[in-house]
């Protein structure tokens, strides 16, 4: 006498969204924890990935300043005299360096310390900012009127410009202090501070003799657009035989990039752990939240909501909060990436140009939303099985005990995610998947005991 019951009421997505909003009115404080969990993970992820991207870009942009020249040849022996005329023909703009370790002395303050002595002839560095104070000291140095000393070294002994420094048998006027030298990080000048000596005066120190450990370097500047690799190609075998290393802008880009790839990888692992912690936070917050909502769900079911509708109300809520957390996290991450270069400043060879990395932000927001939903889904699934009978007897009415097919499906998703995510590489190589892959190799897919 009545039409057959349809499996679900006619209420559509609009109603589900409205209910999701209404239901969130109370307990928003607790949902804040959920948002914070997602935001934490995503902030770390976005911050570190953006930083990695910026670092990689800065290294590429500043590699020339890092080298200070277009080509550097270096060897632990004086260059073969047969090779010298050919090298001289490479470019009219060249500089020579002899570098060695030695005790240096500041007679006025009676300070003695092991330092790196770099004897330089010519106009090195050709690129980058050689930060020397006073400015005019560079010209004075190149004219052979005195030495330049690392600021670190001067301040260690309370010595100052105008004092003299003694290197071997030579006593030199300190004409300037060096705050930054291209290619030298703050850290390396702290470990082995440098005294720059005019190349013509190196012999007078008496420190370069047969058997001394000296590093010989030759710096070249070429006309813009010169193909440096092609230029030195004919020399390769001769360089090899003479134990000469060549360093070009391109090779430095590669080497520095590789070295700092390890740093970003390590940081990515940190981000990944933060993300996992965030996910655990999400899962536990949601399962507590669901427990509080059982009574409300039972009422909804009693009034005619289907299990699917009840689940969707809370899934929409979770997704909304996940998105909110991800956006907050991305914004925080943008802040973190601006701060990281300052925190790591002394370790970094280049000035990292801070910029918002949109790919990192997009991946972060996507990952935040996806992981929030994925990790919330398992605890949320129990909503589908809340018995409407609870409205009559909340105390001891057990909810449907039948195993949920969806739960198995959800676990499969988790496992899938743990296998697939590490193989995606959405940004320029600094993404944590690389580390995750190593992590997974060691620990296997998600902990086996976590399965149902």
């Amino acid at each position: 006498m009545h039409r057959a019951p349809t499996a679900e009421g006619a209420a559509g997505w609009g109603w589900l969204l409205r209910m999701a909003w209404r239901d969130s009115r109370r307990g928003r404080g607790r949902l804040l924890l959920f948002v914070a969990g997602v935001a934490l993970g995503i902030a770390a992820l976005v911050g570190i990935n953006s930083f990695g991207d910026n670092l990689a870009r800065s290294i590429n942009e500043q590699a020339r300043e890092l080298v200070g020249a277009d080509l550097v040849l270096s060897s632990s022996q004086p260059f073969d005299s047969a090779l010298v005329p050919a090298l001289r023909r490479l470019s009219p703009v060249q500089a020579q360096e002899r570098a060695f370790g030695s005790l240096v002395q500041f007679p006025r303050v009676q300070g003695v310390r092991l330092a790196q002595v770099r004897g330089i002839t010519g106009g090195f560095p050709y690129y980058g900012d050689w930060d020397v104070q006073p400015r005019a000291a560079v010209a004075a140095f190149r004219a052979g009127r005195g030495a330049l000393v690392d600021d670190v070294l001067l301040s260690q002994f309370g010595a100052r410009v105008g004092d003299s420094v003694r290197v071997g048998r030579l006593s030199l006027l300190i004409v300037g202090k060096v705050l930054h030298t291209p290619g030298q990080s703050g850290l390396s000048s702290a470990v082995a501070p440098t005294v720059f000596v005019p190349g013509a005066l190196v012999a007078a120190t008496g420190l370069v003799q047969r058997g001394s450990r000296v590093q010989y370097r030759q710096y070249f500047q070429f006309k813009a657009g010169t193909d440096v690799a092609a230029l030195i190609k004919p020399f390769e075998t001769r360089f090899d035989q003479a134990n000469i290393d060549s360093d070009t802008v391109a090779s430095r880009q590669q080497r520095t990039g590789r070295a700092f790839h390890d740093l970003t990888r390590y940081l990515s692992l940190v981000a990944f752990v933060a993300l996992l912690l965030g996910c655990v936070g999400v899962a536990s917050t949601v399962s507590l939240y669901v427990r509080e909502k059982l009574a409300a769900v039972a009422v909804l079911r009693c009034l005619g909501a289907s299990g699917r509708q009840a689940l969707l109300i809370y899934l929409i809520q979770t997704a909304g909060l996940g998105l909110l957390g991800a956006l907050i996290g991305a914004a925080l991450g943008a802040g973190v990436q601006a701060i990281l270069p300052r925190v790591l400043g002394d370790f970094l060879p280049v000035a990292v140009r801070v910029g918002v990395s949109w790919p990192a932000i997009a991946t972060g927001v996507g990952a935040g939303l996806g992981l929030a939903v994925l990790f919330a889904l398992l605890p949320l699934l129990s909503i589908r099985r809340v018995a409407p009978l609870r409205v009559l007897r909340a105390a001891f009415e057990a909810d449907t005990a039948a195993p949920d097919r969806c739960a198995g499906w959800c676990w499969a998703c988790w496992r899938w995610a743990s296998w697939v995510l590490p193989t995606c590489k959405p940004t320029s190589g600094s993404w944590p998947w690389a580390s995750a892959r190593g992590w997974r190799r060691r620990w296997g897919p998600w902990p086996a005991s976590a399965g149902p």
Partner: protein
Amino acid sequence: MSILKVENLTKSYPSAGGAPLTVLHGVSFELAAGDTFAIVGPSGSGKTTLLGLCAGLDRATSGSVWLNGIQLDTLSEDQRAAVRNQHVGFIFQNFQLLPTLTALENVQVPQELRGEKGSAATAQALLERVGLGKRAHHYPAQLSGGEQQRVSLARAFANRPALLFADEPTGNLDPDTSDTVVDLLFELNREAGTTLVLVTHDLELAARTQRTLRVRGGTVQDDVRNQPVNAQARA
């Protein structure tokens, strides 16, 4: 024609120790549309269990329930939810309003679930009818017990149900408030022509219905027509 037909209904719960605990033993009755019907009995006699089965909130161990001609035993959980939404209204001892929804929204939910437009106007009118027109935007926590029960009355009639199930509707109310709520319940019921199934252990309240089913220990003891004079006198 019967609006509710219960046939040989048995409900037992598995018990940890041994034999299952049977709380309803082959209960049968039939209810005509428009009847008011009370189920009475001492605490623990199985009244709530019986109501849950009749309203499609629970499944019987054996036996059948036809609600408005629809056999409930063969339906899935979601199908029974749809039947409840289409044909059934509820009133509970502890009100069961959604705490995060205002009074108005609580009354709207059954209609919204049906996808009906204009639920706000209908809900507002119902709230006026139960004397809470000015409290529409208050949350349950801001309402007294009696007021909450009046909101739940409004909600119960919102989807114009064929059948109204009330489980101890005055169980959590003081006597004066009880009287107001009960009067309102019978008035609304008469106006809407709804069939009422009222579970109570209050014999005085039961006497206001047309018919009383007395259960004890999970079996029907008797099924009597009340004196209409009696009901009239009270109403």
